[in-house]
C-alpha cells in the first residue's frame, strides 16, 4: 500500500483514474469492477461467436501445424518441421511468385483503373451513371466459381476470346488456359475484371464525399485535371484506397476457387498458388500438418501486408 492514497479505498493501485485529460468522468463513477466489465459484456455476444468460429479454429490450425498428421491415425509431434520443410519447398515458392502476379492483377491494376475512372467521372456529371455503376459492379455479385467456369469457356480454343480475335483478323486456335505462358496472366485478368468494379464503386462513393469547394478552389488556383487529382481527389480517397487495397490484396493472396475451377494449377505447375497447395497437401497428399503450416504462413503474410497498407494510409499519417 502506497503512502498518501489510503483515504480513497476504492481507487485501484496506480491511481490512473483522473490521469487521462480527455477521459470522461462519468464512466468512472460507481463500482470500478462494474465499470470495467460492462463494455466487455456489450461485445460479449459477438466476441463469443467470433472466438468460437474464428479464433479457436485459428488456434487449432496453428496447433495442427505442429504435427505430422494424415487426418485419421494418431498425429506425430513435429514441432516446426512442417514450417522448415514447406519454406524450403520450391513448389510453395513458385506458388508465392504466382501470388505476386495476382497482387498486380487483382489489386494494383483494378485500384489504378478505379482511381482513373473515379477521377474522370468526378469532373462532370454523367447521364446513366447508376446503370454503369451497376454493370461494372456486377462481377462482384457473381460467385467466383461461376465466374471461373464462364471464363474457362471464353478462353477455350473455340471460345469467345478466339472469336473476338478472329474479328480482328487474328486466327488463334489456342486453348488459352492450356498454354504454359498465358494461363497465369489470363486467370489474373479475370481477377482484374472482378475487382475493378468494386474499386470504382468505392472510389466514386468517396469522391462524392469530397467537398466540391475544394475542387472549385483548385480550379480557381489554375489546377489542371492531373494536379486536381493529386491534390484533391487522391488525399480525399485515402480511406477508400485503404479499404480497396485491403480487400483486393486479400483476394489476390488467398485466391483458390478461381484457379481450382479454371486450371487446377496446371498446365504443369504454371498456375499453382498457396491456396491450391494447401488443398493439395490437406486433401490429396494427406499431410494435414504441412497444409496447416502453409495456411498459417499465408495468414501471417496477409496480415503483414494488410498492416503495411493500413499504416501507410492512416488518416492521421
Amino acid at each position, binding site marked *: 500500500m502506497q503512502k498518501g492514497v489510503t483515504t480513497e479505498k476504492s481507487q485501484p493501485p496506480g491511481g490512473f483514474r483522473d490521469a487521462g485529460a480527455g477521459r470522461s468522468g462519468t464512466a468512472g463513477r460507481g463500482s470500478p469492477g462494474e465499470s470495467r466489465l460492462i463494455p466487455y459484456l456489450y461485445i460479449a455476444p459477438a466476441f463469443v461467436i467470433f472466438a468460437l468460429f474464428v479464433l479457436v479454429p485459428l488456434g487449432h490450425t496453428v496447433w495442427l501445424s505442429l504435427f505430422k498428421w494424415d487426418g*485419421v*491415425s494418431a498425429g506425430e509431434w513435429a514441432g516446426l518441421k512442417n514450417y522448415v520443410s514447406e519454406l524450403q519447398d520450391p513448389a510453395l515458392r513458385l506458388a508465392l511468385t504466382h501470388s505476386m502476379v495476382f497482387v498486380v492483377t487483382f489489386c494494383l491494376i483494378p485500384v489504378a483503373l478505379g482511381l482513373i475512372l473515379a477521377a474522370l467521372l468526378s469532373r462532370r456529371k454523367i447521364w446513366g451513371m447508376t446503370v454503369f455503376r451497376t454493370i461494372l459492379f456486377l462481377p462482384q455479385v457473381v460467385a467466383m466459381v461461376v465466374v471461373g467456369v464462364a471464363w474457362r469457356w471464353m478462353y477455350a480454343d473455340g471460345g469467345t476470346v478466339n472469336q473476338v480475335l478472329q474479328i480482328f483478323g487474328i486466327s488463334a486456335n489456342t486453348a488459352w488456359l*492450356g498454354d504454359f505462358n498465358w494461363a497465369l496472366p489470363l486467370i489474373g485478368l479475370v481477377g482484374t475484371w472482378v475487382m475493378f468494379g468494386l474499386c470504382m464503386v468505392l472510389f466514386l462513393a468517396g469522391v462524392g464525399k469530397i467537398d466540391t469547394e475544394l475542387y472549385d478552389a483548385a480550379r480557381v488556383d489554375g489546377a489542371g485535371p492531373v494536379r486536381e487529382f493529386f491534390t484533391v481527389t487522391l488525399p480525399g480517397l485515402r480511406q477508400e484506397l485503404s479499404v480497396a487495397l485491403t480487400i483486393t490484396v486479400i483476394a489476390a493472396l488467398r485466391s483458390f476457387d478461381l484457379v481450382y475451377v479454371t486450371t*487446377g494449377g496446371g498446365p504443369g505447375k504454371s498456375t499453382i498458388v498457396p491456396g491450391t497447395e494447401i488443398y493439395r497437401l490437406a486433401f490429396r497428399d494427406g499431410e494435414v500438418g504441412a497444409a496447416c503450416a502453409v495456411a498459417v504462413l499465408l495468414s501471417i503474410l496477409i496480415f503483414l501486408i494488410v498492416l503495411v497498407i493500413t499504416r501507410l494510409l492512416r488518416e492521421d499519417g
Partner: protein
Amino acid sequence: MFTLRAPAPHASGRISRRPGSTLLIAAISVGAVTLSACAPGSTASTGSSSAAIATTVPSADKIDLTMSHFENGGNSDAINTLIKKYQEIHPNVTIKATYTSFTDYGKSIKLTMSSDTPPDIAEVGQAYVMQGPLVKAGLLKPLDAYAQAYGWDTRFKSGLLAQSRFQPDAKSFGSGNLYGLALGGNMVGIYYNKATLAKLGITIPFADQAALDAALAKVKSAGQVPIELGNSEQWPGNHVLSSLIAQDAPIDQQLNWIYGKSGATFSNDGVKKATEKMASWAKSGYFDPSANGNTNDDAIARFAKGTGALMISGNWSLANLAKKMGDNVGFTAMPPAKAGDPARATGATTSPFAVSAKSKHPDVAANFIDFMTRPEAAATLSAGGYAPVAPAGQAAAPVSALQKQFNDVWSKVLADDGLCLYLDWATTSMGDTLFPAVQELIASKTDPGALITAVQADWTKAHS
C-alpha cells in the same frame, strides 16, 4: 456427371469439412483449451483378426447392415438388385445402402469410418488415398479368413486380390492382409472413329506398336488429328503414358514399383522407351493441340464430332461415347510391343468393398460381399455396366457392341493377369508429381529423363 473411380483419385475436389472439426467441437464441448494434452487423430486399435468366423447367416435374429458406396447409374442399380436378391434369401437381414457422390465420398470417408457408428460395409478405394490411412488407423477388418473360407483366391486371379492387400503399417501394399473385394474393373484402351479409319485404310486391331505408329503417321499426313485428348484435369494424359509403359516394361517391375517394394525403380528401360515414345508423339503433333486446355468431357465431345482418329481412354468414357457416336466408335487394345506378347493394360478393379472393424455383424457383411462377387451375380453386374472380374459367368447379359468389344479385350487381359494398375497409386503425392509432368511432356516443356527423375524422387522420398 460420371464419377471416376480408382483411376482418377486426383481428378475431383475433396474439400468440405475441416478434417479436424470433430476434434475441435469435442475440445470446445469439454469447455477447455486443454488441446496441449492431445495429439490429433485416433490411435490404431489392436486388431483381433484371428477371432473365429462364420460363413453362415444366422436366421433367427434381425440383422441390419449399412453400406456406403459411390457407385451411380447402372452400377448402383446392379447393387440394389443384388441387395434385393440377398434379402429374399435372408429375410431377417436388411441392408441399407447409402450413395455419396465420389467427389464428396473421398472427403468424408475417413471421418465416416472413424465415427462411432460407421457403416458395416464401405467402398474403400485401393492404395494410399483411402485404404492406406484407414488400414493404418485399424478401422478396416482383415478379410483373409473369409477369403480362405469362401475360396476367393480361386475365384479371382491373384493380381486382382493383391491390389486390395495392405501391409499393417500401411507403408506398402500389394501384399499383406486383404481389405476388400471389388465387383468390377476398369481399363484403358483405344477408342477409334470407324469412319475415319476406314477412309484412311487403317485396319484394327493393331498387331504391334509399329502398326500403331504407322497408323498415327498416316492420320497426321492426311491432315487430321491422330489422338484426341483432353488433359486440363491433368490425369487423362497420364493414362496414355501408363498404357505405353504397360507394353514396354515387364509387369512385375511395374507392380513392384507401385506396391512400394524396396529396390524398385521407375528409371528402367521400359519406362524410358515408353516416355520417349510419348514425347515423340507430342513432338510429331499427334495429340490435339488444345489437349492441355480441354477437359476429358471436352475431348469426348470433340471426338464424337470427328476430331481425332483415336482416343486413348478407359471404360469410364464408354457409355458417353457409345451414346454420342452410336456405331461409329470402336474399342481396341493398346497393342503390345511385339505381336504375340501377353495382354497388358492400364487398369484395375473398381474400388473394393471393405468391412468396418467396428461392425457388429462382420460375418454377415462378408457373406454379402461374397454374394455380390459370386459367378451367379455376374449377369446382374454386367447388366449394370460392370466389367466382371470373375472369369466365370461373364457372357450372360446383353450389352452394347462397344461394351462387347471392351469386354473381349478385358477378358484377354484378365486371362493373362495383365492389369498394370495406375501409376499414381505408387505414393500419396504421385499424382501431383506425375500428372503436371505429363502435361509438360505433352507441351514439350520437359524431357523424358527429367520426368523419370522427378517421379522416382517422389517414390524414394515416400519409401525411404
